[in-house]
């Protein structure tokens, strides 16, 4: 993280109400201002993550997401705009973010995460928020974050449930410790109400803010699980897998 940019008077005006949060203050704000976040896909989960990162005043958000906006994206992809159906999701997301907070730099990459782009994209970021609907992309992000020692927050949902896994490489269980193979029974099409993905997203965004600023207690080595059907929330103690192909050999 470059510690270059100081807070400006404009920053102080925009973020005044969060500068009042005990344990956050100018120091926390300056950390976010100097942080670049990579968000893998900006759909039902990645979209609200981006919005919360922009609201919090991250310096730069890089969004990787392929494809054109479809009508059936709009029950959950709250960064998108109805009039953009048929055009690139990443551009629609950028327009929304830039009109919401023009002081956050937004870079869009109209591609999903692949073996070809993962390394270079992670290299540009200080923290990665992973929110793709496929384990292939999530495990690639995890592998690259561990390799490059970058913070990772992997947030996922299904039906009325969500789970968030913050990862500090070398220190806490990584995604591959838990999911050592691509789960064969996971299906790309999943039941979703937008409020549930936004809930998972905002828990993930908050975990990222805590990892970066030291605010509160970060949940590395714990999974946060919720069932919005009952509103039962739980934190689950995770274990590193000493045989993990991704992080097992690190100290």
């Amino acid at each position, binding site marked *: 993280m470059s510690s270059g940019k100081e807070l400006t008077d404009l920053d102080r005006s925009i973020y005044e109400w969060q500068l009042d949060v005990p344990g956050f203050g100018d120091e926390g704000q300056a950390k976010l201002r100097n942080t670049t976040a990579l968000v893998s896909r900006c759909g039902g989960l990645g979209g609200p993550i981006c919005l919360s990162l922009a609201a919090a005043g991250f310096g730069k958000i890089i969004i990787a997401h392929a494809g054109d906006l479809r009508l059936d994206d709009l029950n959950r992809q709250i960064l998108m705009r109805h009039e953009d159906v048929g055009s690139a999701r990443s551009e629609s997301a950028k327009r929304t973010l830039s009109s919401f907070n023009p002081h956050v730099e937004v870079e869009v990459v109209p591609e999903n995460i692949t073996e070809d782009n993962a390394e270079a994209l992670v290299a540009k970021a200080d923290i990665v928020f992973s929110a793709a609907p496929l384990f292939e992309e*999530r495990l690639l992000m995890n592998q690259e974050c561990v390799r490059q020692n970058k913070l990772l927050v992997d947030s*996922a*949902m*299904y*039906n009325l449930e969500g789970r968030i896994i913050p990862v500090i490489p070398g220190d806490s269980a990584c995604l591959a410790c838990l999911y050592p193979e691509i*789960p064969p029974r*996971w299906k790309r099409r*999943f039941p979703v109400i937008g409020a549930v993905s936004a809930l998972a997203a905002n828990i993930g965004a908050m975990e990222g803010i805590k990892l970066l600023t030291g605010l509160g207690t970060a949940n590395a080595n714990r999974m946060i699980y919720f069932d919005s059907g009952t509103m039962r929330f739980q934190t689950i103690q995770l274990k590193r897998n000493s045989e993990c192909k991704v992080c097992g050999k690190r100290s």
Partner: protein
Amino acid sequence: MMEITIQYTGQLAGITGAGEEVVELADGSSVASLVSQLCTKHGSQYADLLVNSEGEIRPSTLVILDGVQTEGERSEILLEGVRAVMLMTPIAGG
């Protein structure tokens, strides 16, 4: 006998139609005996999510005992003193 609460998440919750159930197990039961009892009770679609064709717990299905994830030879873990078992199938909705 011991009584254990089984908590379901993801697709398992969809198949059982309930977020949790209480099961009775013989003293000395292991995770393997619990899983085999549950697969018999709930049928092939349930079993297919939880175990592979050899009957082993799928590597990406998490077995969480009283809020703590287990790893390694999970089938052999004895359930003595455990109150709740959470079975979590992998989810990646985004």
